Every structure is written in C-alpha cells, then in structure tokens.
C-alpha cells in the first residue's frame, strides 16, 4: 500500500480526475472531500462489508418455517 503524509488543506490526485482533499483533522477524525466523476462510486468500506455479510446471512437460510412465514405477510 502506498502511504503518503498529508496535512489539512492538501490533496491527492488519482488518475487525473479524482481529487481527495483532507479538509480537517480533529481529535483523530479526518474529514475528507472527494471530487470524482459520477461514474466513480465512493463507499464507506464498512457499509460494503455489512451488505456483504447480510447477503451471506440471507444465503444461509435453511429449513424455514414456511407456515409462520405465510401468516406473516400475504403475497
């Protein structure tokens, strides 16, 4: 992994058209501004991981009690 040191107000440019700017650093929290084309998706990593783990939990469904489920919601 490439590691660079930056101060508040400084930026990084990735591949010509993505700018990552350090806006503020307070008490161990960093505020980051990202400018990128709309086609580039930017996500918090923990969100991706949480969704991935929900998908895995969903796929683990075994022997569900169909009768209770049928009562739960009508189609």
């Amino acid at each position: 992994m490439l590691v660079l040191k930056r101060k508040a107000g400084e930026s990084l440019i990735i591949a010509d058209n993505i700018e990552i700017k350090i806006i503020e650093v307070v008490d161990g929290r960093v505020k980051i501004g990202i400018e990128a084309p709309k086609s580039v998706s930017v996500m918090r990593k923990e969100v991706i991981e949480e969704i991935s783990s929900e998908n895995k939990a969903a796929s683990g469904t075994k022997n569900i009690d169909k009768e209770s489920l049928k009562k739960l919601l009508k189609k």
Partner: protein
Amino acid sequence: MKISTEYFGDIEINESDIINFEHGLLGFEACKRFVIISEPEMFLEYLQCVDEDFSIPMMNPFLVKSDYELELPEKTLSELEIKEEKDVLIRTVVVIPEDITQIRTNLQSPIVINTQNKNARQIILDDSYPIRYSFYKKEEV
C-alpha cells in the same frame, strides 16, 4: 437446461430466464448468473445462482414499506440499459434467522433488475434506509 440444487432439487430453467449480474452480488462476486424461483403462496422469492448451488431469499420491499422510494442513479440506468420505469423490478434481500421474529430486509441495498434485457445489479443507496429493516408483524400494528 437443468440445474441441481440442494434446496429446490433438480430444476429445469430456460436460458431466457437467466438474470445477469455482471458484478455478482456483494459477498458472492463470482456468481454472475441467477434465476428467480418463486415460493408459492408467499411473499418470498429466491435468487438461485446457476453456476454454484446457493440461493438468496428476496422480496418486494413495497410490501413492508409502502412509501419506499428510490431514485436510480444515472450510472445504474445506463449500465443496465434501463429505458422505461415499467421494465424495472425492485427486490430486496431477506434474512430469515431461526428466530423468525428477527426477519429483516436490506432496504439500503436493493436489487435492480431490468426485466427486458435481464441485466441486474445490487445497488447501494445512501443511508436513508437501513441495511437491517425488521418487519415482523409490522403490518398488523
């Protein structure tokens, strides 16, 4: 073609029913081809992977959240080549734990299917909707 599944047994599927997830599903990036299996008399459906044996329950989120609203990002519209709203099917992943009162669906990350060309993707919305939306007996309140 025929596929063998542990959960549904051997099932016969038509090539034309195959839904293509170019990017797979989060956590299951390797599986790109799925079919939808309906559960009779119930709100559940399953996304069954064609190339591996696993399936994911999903549902129509509007059944438990009638004011569910989402604006599809331009990127999704162009990627899935969506031309008309009526061609879009929205489903959300359902987690059914052994304790059924914990049943929940992921409203933050719906599955968007273009029913015309069968292209699909699980997209991620902002956090206005939860990843874990519990709906056990919500309707009865």
